[in-house]
């Protein structure tokens, strides 16, 4: 199937259109809110919340007996919030650290959820089939109503985000200052956490409990590499998320036996790896290039200054010296000598070198210049 054909199919085929739209919206909203999770150093909270939501789904099912998606999501939201606040309670009231609290709530809630789900499955109730789709997610079960729901929640998220943009931003970067300015930090904190929980719960049906944390983190981590501005980062993360959703859906739709969730996560992972390597300011590639260039510069300067100290002892700067005497010196290579010649700092006559006027001046001011530059 080629690409144009696929795109045509996205617009005509109901299932494909629904899934593509759903995953795109989901990616956008998780990317948006994930930026806050990443910057608040709460990356693993997403993982904990998504696991903690499981018993809520099961209990909601036990109470209502119906498999209405929205009610189950409400249950997930409540139990996710309980998990989040319990984590906070453990961290603030006991001496257990945040990682222990997260792992604890994650595994305990999940285990309890599994207990409930297996308990439900043994019940003589034909309606319960498919509860475990929340474990790994099944994008194929998305219907138009779910997409509308997602769009609605995304809209609310966006609205609240814009409304409280200033507050969120300042809380993110300087919590103490926010408090002294008189903002109700607790309220802002709870608001943003609630929305993160909401985004996670929305994604459970599509990508599942286990992989949800990657949906939250990957777009944000990728976006972080390209910018230092919060607004740009949130925007980029939303786009990366949406793209991962669309591309992931396309790949999984074009092959047999590929579940959508893991493919989306892998696509998001590719975004992350690409950003880690190729981002111009923070990326590993350019960092390495800068590192090598700096080292070369340093070597060049070291050689030059060594030559300078030799030339200094003679009355005539241009007095020729043997290249041999440089050999035992660190930082000297044939290449660096060649470069010095190119820059017209040094002249070579056979096996002898001599410093030029220009080279002498540069070498004498080597460290002064640097200090000036730094100022």
């Amino acid at each position, binding site marked *: 199937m080629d690409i144009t054909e696929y795109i045509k199919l996205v617009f005509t085929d109901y299932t494909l259109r629904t899934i593509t739209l759903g995953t795109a919206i989901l990616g956008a909203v998780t990317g948006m809110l994930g930026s806050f999770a*990443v910057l608040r150093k709460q990356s693993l909270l997403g993982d904990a919340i998504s696991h903690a939501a499981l018993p809520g789904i099961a209990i909601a099912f036990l109470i209502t007996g119906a498999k209405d998606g929205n009610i189950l999501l409400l249950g997930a939201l409540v139990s996710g919030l309980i998990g989040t606040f319990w984590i906070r309670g453990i961290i603030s009231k006991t001496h257990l650290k945040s*990682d222990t609290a997260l792992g604890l709530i994650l*595994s305990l809630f999940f285990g309890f959820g599994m207990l409930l789900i297996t*308990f439900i499955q043994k019940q003589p109730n034909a309606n319960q089939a498919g509860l475990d789709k929340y474990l790994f997610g099944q994008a194929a079960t998305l219907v138009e109503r779910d997409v509308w729901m997602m769009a609605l929640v995304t809209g609310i998220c966006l609205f609240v985000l814009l409304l409280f943009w200033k507050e969120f931003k300042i809380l993110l970067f300087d919590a103490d200052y926010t408090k002294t300015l008189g903002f109700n930090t607790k309220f802002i904190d709870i608001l943003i956490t609630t929305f993160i929980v909401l985004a996670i719960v929305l994604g459970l049906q599509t990508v599942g409990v286990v992989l949800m944390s990657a949906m939250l983190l990957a777009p944000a981590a990728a976006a972080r590499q390209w910018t230092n501005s919060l607004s740009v980062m949130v925007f980029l993360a939303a786009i990366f998320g949406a793209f991962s959703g669309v591309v992931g859906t396309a790949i999984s739709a074009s092959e047999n036996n590929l579940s959508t969730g893991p493919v989306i996560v892998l696509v998001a992972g590719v975004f992350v790896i690409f950003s880690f390597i190729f981002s111009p300011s923070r990326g590993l590639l350019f960092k390495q290039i800068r590192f090598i260039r700096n080292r070369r510069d340093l070597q060049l300067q070291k050689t030059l200054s060594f030559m300078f100290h030799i030339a200094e002892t003679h009355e005539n700067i241009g007095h020729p010296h043997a290249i041999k005497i440089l050999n035992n010196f660190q930082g000297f290579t044939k290449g660096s000598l060649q470069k010095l010649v190119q820059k017209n700092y040094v002249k070579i006559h056979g096996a002898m070198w001599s410093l030029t006027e220009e080279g002498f001046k540069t070498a004498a001011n080597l460290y002064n210049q640097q200090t000036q530059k730094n100022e």
Partner: protein
Amino acid sequence: MSSAQIEIQLIASLVAIACAIPGTFLVLRKMAMISDAISHSILPGIVIGFFITQDLNSPLLIFLAALTGIITVVLVEYIQKTGLVKEDTAIGLVFPILFSIGVIMIAKNANDVHLDVDAVLLGELAFAPFDRMLVYGVDVGPKSLWIIGTILLITVALLIAFFKELKVSTFDAGLAASLGFSPAIIHYGLMAVSSVTTVGAFDAVGAILVVALMISPAATAYLLTNNLKRMLVYAVCFGVISAISGYWLAHFLDASIAGSITTMLGVFFLGVYLFAPNKGIIAVMYREKQQRIEVSLLTFLLHLKNHKEKSERHVNHLNEHINWQKVRSKTVLDLALKNNMIYIDKHIVSLTEKGEGFTSKAITYIITNKDAQIEDMKDDFFLFRG
């Protein structure tokens, strides 16, 4: 009890012990989430191992999966070292990606692989007794029992051999390094043990329960003691008790054994979290309240000492001047009376000799910036606490 039931409980208990030991150190080293990451990211290792051996219990599969666990740790540390993202983000990125690769590998080969993601993640202890280990045709017990028993034996041997090193490096990495223990070797050793335990246990109890069994008993024990040896013993006890009680809960509810063991772990943690003598929520809240009242008492006594005039020492003045509510001022007043710090004569409050001594001493401590000493002083002066 049938022999299968006894075997299941035995396996569950051994898994609990094998998990509690590395878990204790993970919790103390603030690396609890690493165990979660490992438990997920071993999936591709398991799948590849399964392709090769077609046997979930083969040593090669365990080795490959444990290797994946170590790779996870190395990857997380590498990403963290680049400084591009924080450690927690690095963990959160690595394990879902590895897990996804595992899921996709299973999905692509669904027809020829008899391996289920659910099984890896959730495990099914109930089936463990059916996979027997045969030595020269003689049935010597369930395979998983032997696997987890071996792992436990190795873990205990390593623990005893390197207890001192582990202890020092956990609580003071700098000292450990200066004493000549390589922090890297201990770190990766612990990671290797955790990975192997996770892999050995996942077949029986599933990856998520492994995390629960590693972290919860250790966290519960940590709320009860600060002594490492005791913490290890408590953690093992909690693990085993939850494993056995969890089995019977599952038996009773006819639900997943792994789920019920986790639930029991949760119940124990919740109980200790609420009622632990010193660090439980209730104890902490009670202490906070006590402190609040005692601080009020101190303020009140200092106020009395500062004012000789009668109007300032009238009982009703308390409410107005220091802006306390009635109940609170009454509590403070009662406490002061009970402790014989003050006497009330015609609604005028005065310090007793003991009260004078207490406040003078408190002031010296406050002036010399030794506020912490006031806590010790309270023990000397107070008959009744707030």
